[in-house]
């Protein structure tokens, strides 16, 4: 072999590869689209030291101190104070639903006790299901409270300011008091694994028929699109439930992850979540031209799902636009449900606001699939 034949053959293959690349537009779009998406998500949306976390201040009375505490908490950047005046029980409910991440309670006689020099307690309750999300903020609480105090303790109260902290910050890490990471990861993994496998399996459903030539035969038979879709989806619901059972058992016995809430209710919601993922997979398979494209679409769906759902990075730490996009994905809602049920013992009333988006997502995906499903070879 001499150099000129090497060059000829090498350039022949090179040219052929470029021609094929140009014919497969979707792959080309993916190669450009994925890095752009990752750059934007990692660069703007994701924050491993999340700030502006939703916080409620439950103050029995509006005192100058409570006002300046709110101001300095906000000033720290870690907290976004909900202006609504919640009662203690309302705030706890919101915390259970995941709409709030912190409750700061100022006891009714806080100012008076402080003035007497008796070191009153400031109660901070945190949703610690995700220890990573709350760590930075909790460290900032004491600092913020002290700043507020330094501002207020003037005049006759100035004597309280120096030396030992004049009050105590009592932190309650709810739902995961020891801050075990696995408590957060294992329920999340249920959602992650189901999203990946379910979408992938059904996204291949129709494209495989098409590639193997069996699609033409299927079309020639008197079968309705709905029948095909349900027939393709339902088997994987069982596969998904088996996966969940494995994760739950392993999570329980290897990592001691608790299941506080109702297993029956969780199973019911799991079926909905699995079906939502299977439907979007089926929708992809009606759009993709071949199995490779179906896999690429799965990946394109999966990537923002893990990044924006709150699985990898705290949801509440993302900017508003990223949270809004995150709300689209079934995984986002499912994570709130599964963490709620397993760690917080959430009831139906608490999780049901997250179930409707799953059903809505599934409904839209089904409509797209039915609109895209071709009954003819046209």
């Amino acid at each position, binding site marked *: 072999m001499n150099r000129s034949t090497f060059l000829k053959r090498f350039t022949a293959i090179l040219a052929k590869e470029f021609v094929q690349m140009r014919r497969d537009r979707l792959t080309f779009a993916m190669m450009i689209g994925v890095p752009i998406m990752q750059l934007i998500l990692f660069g703007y949306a994701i924050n491993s030291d999340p700030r502006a976390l939703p916080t409620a201040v439950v103050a029995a009375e509006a005192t100058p101190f409570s006002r300046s505490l709110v101001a300095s908490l906000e000033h720290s950047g870690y907290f976004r104070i909900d202006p609504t005046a919640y009662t203690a029980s309302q705030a706890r409910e919101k915390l259970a639903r995941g709409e709030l991440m912190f409750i700061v309670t100022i006891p009714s006689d806080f100012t008076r006790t402080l003035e007497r020099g008796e070191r009153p307690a400031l109660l901070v309750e945190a949703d610690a299901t995700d220890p990573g999300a709350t760590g930075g903020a909790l460290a900032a609480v004491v600092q913020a409270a002290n700043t507020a105090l330094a501002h207020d303790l003037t005049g006759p109260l100035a004597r309280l300011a120096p030396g030992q902290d004049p009050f105590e910050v009592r932190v309650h890490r709810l739902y995961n008091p020891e801050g075990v990471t696995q408590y957060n990861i294992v329920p999340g993994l249920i959602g992650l694994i189901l999203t990946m496998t379910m979408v992938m399996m059904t996204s291949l459903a129709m494209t495989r028929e098409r590639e193997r030539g069996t699609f033409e*035969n299927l079309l020639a038979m*008197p079968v309705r699109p709905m029948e095909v879709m349900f027939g393709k989806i339902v088997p994987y619901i069982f596969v998904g439930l088996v996966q969940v059972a494995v994760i739950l058992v392993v999570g329980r016995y290897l990592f001691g992850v608790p299941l506080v809430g109702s297993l029956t209710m969780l199973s019911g919601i799991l079926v909905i979540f699995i079906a939502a993922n299977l439907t979007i997979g089926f929708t992809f398979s009606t759009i993709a031209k071949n199995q490779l494209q179906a896999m690429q679409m799965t990946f394109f769906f999966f990537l923002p799902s893990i990044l924006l759902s709150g699985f990898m990075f705290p949801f509440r730490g993302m900017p508003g636009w990223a949270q809004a996009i995150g709300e689209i994905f079934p995984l986002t809602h499912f994570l709130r449900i599964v963490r709620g049920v397993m760690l917080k013992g959430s009831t139906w009333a608490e999780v049901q606001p997250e179930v409707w988006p799953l059903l809505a997502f599934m409904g839209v995906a089904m409509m797209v699939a039915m609109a895209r499903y071709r009954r*003819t070879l046209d």
Partner: protein
Amino acid sequence: MSADAAIAVRGLNKSIGALHAVRDVSIEVRRGQICGFLGPNGSGKTTTIRLLCGLLTPDSGDGHCLGFDILRQSAAIKREVGYMTQRFSFYEDLSIRENLRFVARMYGVPRPNRVVNEALERLGLTKRQKQLAGTLSGGWKQRMALAACILHQPQLLLLDEPTAGVDPKARREFWDQIHLLAGEGLTVLVSTHYMDEAERCNTIAYLDTGRLLAFGSVADIIHTSGLTTWHVDAPDPIALATELRRQPGIAMVAAFGNTLHVSGPDAAALNAALAPYRRDSSLRWTESNPSLEDAFISLMERNRATGSVAA
């Protein structure tokens, strides 16, 4: 449009992308007939078959298939039609029996097990019923496909090149089955490239570049072509063929061993062209009937010549 027509379509047109695949095709096939669909590759045979069974929607044209409107009642047509695709389109990872059972259930056949057993028996597949379809050879695959097509007792079979790449014995057996089915009252429309198969049909439709060039019995088609044919035994057929092809009045020269088939559309012109060669004592001439193949090639060449003028 006669009442006993299984297929009666008029003026079908279909474009696929930039290609005008089917142009103004009108066909009428009576019930119980075997209609052969012939034409070169890409002539529109498969597209026409797909239009008939509702897999494609025609751009224009209308008609009926088994009394159902091909535009509006494709669901009803699908239930009464057995369609065998050109490419094997059953599940290679299912056994013969599993494939047949699946098809039977898709058509909602009552007592699917019994029906599957009968079909297996009929096509001699009983012993192989547990074999995976993907491991079958071409001939057996075609048998299985035929078994699957007749499970739901269709009234019309659309077979798209069912015997392509199948050995002669399997082909013969396949056609015996088709004749049996036609004898039971099924209408069969079958596309093929084999002349012997074409000759086993009641009627033949010949397509080229999407146009229906001829429609009728074998004799009709040969008559339509208007060819006159001579056979000649020659010591050096290749050289003679080259020489003859240059003569005006001779449209086609085809070699079959040491015999040449020489044809032309105008008998007088052909005879004039051949006159000098007739006197050559080393050549033995016999007047003959043009074959179906001669007729087809002549029809195709004339179509292409006029087609290119029109374009």
